[in-house]
Structures are given as structure tokens and as C-alpha cells.
């Protein structure tokens, strides 16, 4: 057995071409970054950081083109229509932008979806996407209820919850549905305050102000993300304990956030980007779900509410506390 192994190996050793090394990052890859966020996109930084960690240097072996249509997925459709195979090697999109990409079938698309990509029809299954799409899904649907619960935990007096929701976002109806059910289960009266894109945003805020709600919950999506500081300040000025999906909102002054770490997610996307640029097919790269969720608490904001908040029920669970 050993001898046979040896002979097979010796013969094989001479037969294997030395050039069987992993393909190096040689040519310049073009990555198109599509976002409905505004220019200052915190997730792009995460993605860039991830690319750097994979050995890419912008300008030398990768070019990141970004197209922003702040809070306006329709604006992206025009760009996407122009795209042809070969123009770019990879498209990275998130949220609403992904929906704009669904017409593209030749170019690999990486997405970061809060909703279920199978339900959205861009992948066949999480294990084997089978299309030119792959990426991560944040399980937002499941987390939607959790956010209501956490808000209730910190603010036990919660009875009326204003839910700020952008209609123009994939998976929004189911997200609202999950939120509503959780709220009802927790004996909370949810107030649905929808708006369609950035144009209706101001009006939506005004509606919240008039809703006489106890607290406010905003779905994680581009329009509120872009305007996160405004939303956070608005909530504080209205003395509404606020709950968000991503810690970026907390950084901007939101009270609470619960969700996957977006930067970590984009870091992971960068790893997938590397693999796709090296020739792997998105169809065979499973959609990844985050396994770590962070609960962020902004103590500065919490101070505004004083004794009304039960910080003790939250602090021991928080993974990120902003003081």
C-alpha cells in the first residue's frame, strides 16, 4: 500500500504542472457599487476595508465605481439598463438597489438583503443560489419582531408604537407584518406610517410627530439610513424612545438598534467578491446569514428619558454601549 502510494505520488509529482498555483490577482477588476444611500455610505467603507483585507488595492487591481441614487431605486434602473456583460466584473448592491439589478443576468451581483432573497426571486435557495446573485440576508423579518420586544423591554410603558416604513423597499410589507404581529403580541398598538421614497420622508416625520406615539421604530432601509441623524434628532426632540435596525443609527443618536453588524456583513461580501473575481460562480456560493447580532444602546440618548427607561433589562445584553 505504501509503496503503491509512493509510486503513484512520485509519478504524479512529476506530472503535476508547477503552474497549478492559485490564480493571482493580476488584472484590474471593475466593481460597480450601486446604492440608494447618499454619497457618504458607511457600508462602502466596510466593503473597501474587506477588499483591502483580501489583498486588493484600489486603483491598482480593482476599480470601484459607485452610483448613488439616494433613496431612489428607480434612478438606478437607468444605469442598470445600460450595463452590458464585460462592462464591469461585479455589481454590489444593497436593499432597494438589488431590486433594480434583477434584470441583469450576465454580471455577478452581490447583495446585502434585509428580506428573504428566495421570496424576492433572485436566488433559488440559500444553499445554492443557482443564479448570478448571491450575498447575505439579514433575517430582518425575524428580527423585526425582536426589535419591538427589545423596545418594550427598555421602555415597559410602551403602548403606541409609530412604525416609520419606506414603501419603496423590497420585503417591506412582510417586515411591517412581522412588526405588527409582534407588537400586537406584546400588547402594543402599532401605528403604520409609510412613505414612498425620499420625497415623502419629511411628510412621514410630520405624521409621526402628530401620531402621539410612545416610541418610534424605523425599518433599516436607505432613506432613513441616509437621514439617520435627522431621524434620531427628530425622535429625541419628540421624546420618543427610538429603535433601529443597524448600529449606525445609534451612532447618529438613536436610542437602540438591533441587527447584524453591517460592516462585518460587507466585509464578508468582500470575501465573496474576491472569490467571484477569481472565477467562482455566484450560483454556487451560498447566501450567508449573519450569526452575530448586535444590540446597541446610546446611553446619551437614554439620559433624555431618565427613569422612564429600564436600562437594566437591556444593558447586560448589549453588545455595544455608546456613552
Amino acid at each position, binding site marked *: 500500500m505504501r509503496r503503491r502510494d*509512493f509510486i503513484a505520488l*512520485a509519478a504524479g*509529482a512529476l506530472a503535476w504542472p508547477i503552474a497549478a498555483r492559485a490564480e493571482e490577482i493580476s488584472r484590474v477588476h471593475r466593481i460597480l457599487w450601486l446604492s440608494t444611500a447618499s454619497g457618504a455610505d458607511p457600508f462602502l467603507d466596510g466593503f473597501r476595508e474587506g477588499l483591502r483585507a483580501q489583498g486588493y488595492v484600489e486603483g491598482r487591481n480593482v476599480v470601484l465605481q459607485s452610483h448613488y441614487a439616494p433613496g431612489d431605486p428607480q434612478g438606478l434602473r437607468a444605469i442598470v439598463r445600460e450595463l452590458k456583460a464585460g462592462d464591469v466584473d461585479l455589481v454590489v448592491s444593497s436593499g432597494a438597489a438589488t431590486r433594480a439589478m434583477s434584470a441583469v443576468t450576465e454580471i455577478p451581483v452581490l447583495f446585502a438583503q434585509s428580506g428573504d432573497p428566495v421570496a424576492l426571486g433572485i436566488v433559488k435557495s440559500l*444553499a445554492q443560489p443557482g443564479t448570478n446573485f448571491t450575498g447575505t440576508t439579514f433575517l430582518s423579518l425575524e428580527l423585526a419582531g*425582536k426589535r419591538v420586544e427589545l423596545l418594550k423591554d427598555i421602555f415597559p410603558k410602551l403602548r403606541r408604537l409609530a412604525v416609520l416604513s419606506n414603501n419603496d423597499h423590497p420585503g417591506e410589507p412582510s417586515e411591517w407584518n412581522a412588526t405588527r404581529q409582534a407588537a400586537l*403580541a406584546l400588547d402594543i398598538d402599532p401605528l403604520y406610517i409609510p412613505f414612498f421614497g425620499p420625497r415623502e420622508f419629511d411628510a412621514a416625520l410630520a405624521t409621526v410627530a402628530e401620531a402621539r406615539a410612545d416610541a418610534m421604530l424605523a425599518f433599516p432601509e436607505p432613506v432613513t439610513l441616509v437621514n439617520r441623524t435627522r431621524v434620531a434628532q427628530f425622535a429625541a426632540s419628540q421624546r420618543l424612545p427610538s429603535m433601529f435596525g443597524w448600529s449606525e443609527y445609534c451612532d447618529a443618536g438613536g436610542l437602540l438598534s438591533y441587527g447584524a453588524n453591517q460592516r462585518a456583513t460587507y466585509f464578508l461580501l468582500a470575501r465573496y467578491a474576491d472569490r467571484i473575481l477569481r472565477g467562482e460562480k455566484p450560483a454556487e456560493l451560498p447566501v*450567508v446569514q449573519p450569526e452575530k447580532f448586535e444590540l446597541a444602546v446610546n446611553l446619551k440618548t437614554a439620559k433624555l428619558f431618565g427613569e422612564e427607561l429600564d436600562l437594566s433589562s437591556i444593558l*447586560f445584553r448589549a453588545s455595544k454601549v455608546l456613552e
Partner: protein
Amino acid sequence: MTLADMGLARSSLPRRIYLRWLRLRRSLCFKYLVTLFVAVVLPLTLGAAGEAWFGYRDQSRHLNEVLQLQSRSAAERIDAFADEISVQLGWAVQFPWTDGSDVRHKIDALRLLQQVPAILSIVLVDQSGTERVSVSRVRLNRTGRGSDMSADPAVRGARAGKVWYGPVRYEHDSEPYMRIATAGNLAAAGVAIADVNLKLIWDVIAAIRIGESGHAIVVDDTGRLIAHPDISLVLRGKAGSEDFLRLKQALNANAATIVTTGIGGKPVVAAAAPVTKLGWTVIALQPAAEAYASLRAGLWRSLVLIVIGALIAVALSYGLAMRMSGPIRELEDGAKRIGSGQFDHRIALASGDELEKLATRFNEMAGELAISKQKSERISRLKRFLAPQVAELVENSDGLLDGRRREVVAVFADLRGFTAFSARAEPEIIIAALREYYEAVGAVITAHEATLIQFAGDGVMILLNAPVACADPAHRAVRLAIDLQAAVQSLAKRWSDKGYAMGFGVGIAMGPATVGTIGYEGRLDYTAVGSAINLASRLCDLAGDAQILIDPVVAEQVSCDVRVTWLGERTIKGYSRAMQVFAVVDGESAQRRPRVSITSRAREVLRLDGANPRAALCGLKSASPESPGVGMHPVGH
């Protein structure tokens, strides 16, 4: 054109190639090549093979150690991972359930969630098997009496064995999860069941790096991946699980490290260790190409060395063959020239080796051949003058031709009436007659191994006992003379038929004479000087047609065999006193060897002359003393 060349012209390409190959195989270059190749490449190959074999054994041992160690340590860490979770769960089941303890238990459970990132959710069950608290990272938390879980395998398992590990479950057929349940020390504390995200084992597995791309993986009983450094392979579902199952089974059958076909068809070196608590298997593997990279590098190095060796062998053999073939062609050419008779050709070789020695030998041989050729030329020249046997003798025994005194018998012969004939006849006829004459004379001389010293016109001088000694020269001379007479007389008869009357006379004398070569550089003759010679010449002059005159010495010598008649005393020119002259009586034909006896008169004369006892004895033997020409008994009768 050689046979092979002819074949080349005719035959098909493969045959031509074969013939060329045959020729090549026989060439010196090829033989050198084979020798050097064997001398260079064989040891190198053996060395490489040996090195590779021992290198392979060492590397295999090392790999075995590394892979076993890695797989075992990974298995232990995974065990520890599961242990850790079950121990942590123990915290949630320390206190017995009371009606008001739900909140406290919930906080314990939430703390646990915070403590152990891998746990997705925890369900706490009281002693009756009823769900009391459920906390989750993604679902809403629940407290208070819930569903009855006493039949849940987790509850039953934990109650039976304190700790229970569930099977691996894949959410959305992608993300791996498992349930771990721990029962409290007090039955009243119930059971804590945790849903564990197994993606978190990735940290354990990803930390294992064997070489450059060697890694560890974890598979369950069905071969389905639980952990892999490339998490996407785990999430990909059942795809590839047959490969992993095959790998696992191959490893289960072998205790030690094995080389087998890995994932993607490439050979891998792998070792397995069981995660006993969970029924999983950790497989540490490294691509064989990488594991044996040093070996492969060694093999390549050896191959390069072998190739270099082979090239050197080829170059050397070519060089050597070229160095050899030049001189050999020179030798071949030289031998050919020498063979074709250019004995003055010399092979100029200064290689300093055996070939030069060979060339020297060739040159020496050419010299000797030249000498030998000169000698044979000389012999053939001599043969024109001498009997062939004599010529050989003369050539091969030095000194025979040196001047000396010795007893010789001289025979002189010439044609009678030749002068008149030559004056009358046409030159062609003269030359034709002379040619016939000399042919006849020459044949007889050769037959009797006598030496033709000279011929002038129709006269010949023949010498016996010089330069080559012979037994009984007088007898020989007489028989020669008899044969000469017979031969020439038969010619003369033909000539007379044509109208030329010519006779033939012979004179023989015996006595001491000085023999040797005379003449000058470029023209040397062997000759004899002495009174016997002169006497023979004179006797020839005296002799009439068909007559053989002999002097007393010869007469005495031959008298017992040949019939001799005394002709009386004659005055001979150059001799102060008259000389006894005898004649050979020859009544027989030339072919017969006559048994002659001396006439009584002749015997008398001879006795008077002090004949030797032998002659007397001969006389006694003779049959009839008085009848002339009688007493002769031809042997042939």
C-alpha cells in the same frame, strides 16, 4: 553501395528508419552513448529513487504525526466547544422552578445568550417537562407555562444522561444547527435546551492550518459537512457529501494517515479523529501535491540532474566518438591505400593513444609490405634468369650470391647452323624460332632446377651447383643435356621440315670456379669464372649436332650411369695440352632416362686418368665390355 544502402533506396520509410537505427546502433557513438548513459544516468536515477523513497517515508511519518495531532486537537476542541455549552447551560438549571421564578430564569437564559455567542436560543423546561422560558436572538421571548416538552428527545436525553447532544439540523437546508440539552443536578431544576449555531465551530476549524492549504473539516455520520474553513461549502447543503462520506469511510478503514482522492479529484493526505461525544469526525487533510512538495522538488532536481547527466553523456560520447572517428577514418583510409598498393603511404596520427600505436603498426606494416613487395618483385625478376626454385633460394638466403669458389658444372649449348639461318630467314621467323628454342630450353632448365646464367643469340650457359648447391651436379648436368638434346632435336626436326637445317650441340665441364655477382649498380649478373667454364664453352664449340661433349671429370662422375664414349684427345684453345674428350652416347629418346654405361675404352682412359673407385665398380658391373653402345638397360623396361 552496400547492401543496406540498396535497401535504403528501395524500402519503405519505417524500414528505412529501422535500417538507419540499425546502423546507428552499431556505431561507435551509440556504444559510447549507451556506456556513458548507463554510467551517468543509472547511479543518478538510483540515487534519486533512493532519496525519494526515504524522503517519502520521512515525510509520510511527519505528515502522519502532524495530521493526527491536528485532527485530534481539533476533535478535542470541538468536544470542548460542546462541553462549554453544556456547562454554561448548567447555570440556567441550578435552581428549582417555583411559580415566581420565571423572570429570574429568563434573565439567566438571556445572560447565557450574551455569554455564549453560538447559542441562538434557549428553552428552559421545568421538572414536569413543561416549557417555562424561551429566549432567542431572533424570535420573541416567551415566559410562563408553554407546551409540554416531556416527550422531546432533548428533554428525555438530558434527563437520562444529564447532557444530551442532538443531531445536526440544517436551517433552510443550509445553516447547520444542533440542540444541546443539560439537566440540572436537581430534578426540580428542569432542563435547559440550547439551539446552537454550528457555524461558530468555524473558529475552531479555521484556526487549523496545515502547511499552506492543508486544513481540517468536520463531517457528521452521513458525510455531510458541519465545519469547513470555507464556510460556503457547509452552507451549500448536501452537495459533495458523497465525497466527504467516501473520504470518511476510507479513513475509518485505516488507522493511520492515508493518501486518497480528496474533494475535487486531487489526491490528499488525510487523517481522521472522532469527536466521540457528538459522533462526528474531524478530518485533517493536506493536498498531496503540497504535502510532498519538497519531495517533488527533490524529484525535479534529480530529474534536472539526470537530464544534465544525460546531456553530458550525449555530448561526451559524441565528442569521444568524433575524436575516435577522425583517427579511425584516417586509419581506414590509410589501410585502404596501403591495401591498394600505396606502400609509401604513411598514416599521420598524433593522438598519443592506442590509435597512434595502431597507426604506427599500420605504417610499419606498410613498410614491411613495401619490402616484401620489392622482394617479390625481385624474385619475379630473378625468376627470369633463374629457375623459380633457385630464384626463391637466391632471394631468401643471403650470401648465396656473394663471390666464392666452388665446384660447379657448366653446361654450354648452342644451335648449329643458326648463323646461316639467321642470315637467310626473315626476322619474324628468326624470332619465332628463337622463342620456340628458348621455351624448350627454358622448360628443361626449370625442370632440372639448373641456373640459366646467360643466353646470347642461340647460345646458353647453364650452371649447376651454384648458386644453389645440389647433389650430384654432374649427373644432373648430363641428364639436363640429354633432355636438352631431346627437346631441341624434336624442334630441329620440325625446323628441317620447314627447310631450315639446324643442329644442337652441348658441352659440359666440371671444376672449381669463382661464382658471384658482377656488374654495376643497376645491372648485375650472376656469373661464374673459371677454367671449367671455358672448357665447357670450348667443348660446346667442339660438339657436333646432337652431340654432348663432356670433360673427364664429368665423364668420371657419370660413367657408371651414363654411357660415355671416349673421343680421344683434342687440343683445345686456351689449354696448353691436349684434353681428353668424352661424349654422352644417347641413342634413346629424350623422354627416357637412360641407364648408360661407359664404353670399355672410355673406362680405360678414365682409369688411366686415375678414375675413382666408384667408376671402377661401375665398370665391373657393366655387362658387356667390348660391344660399343651395349650394356645399356633402359630403366623403363
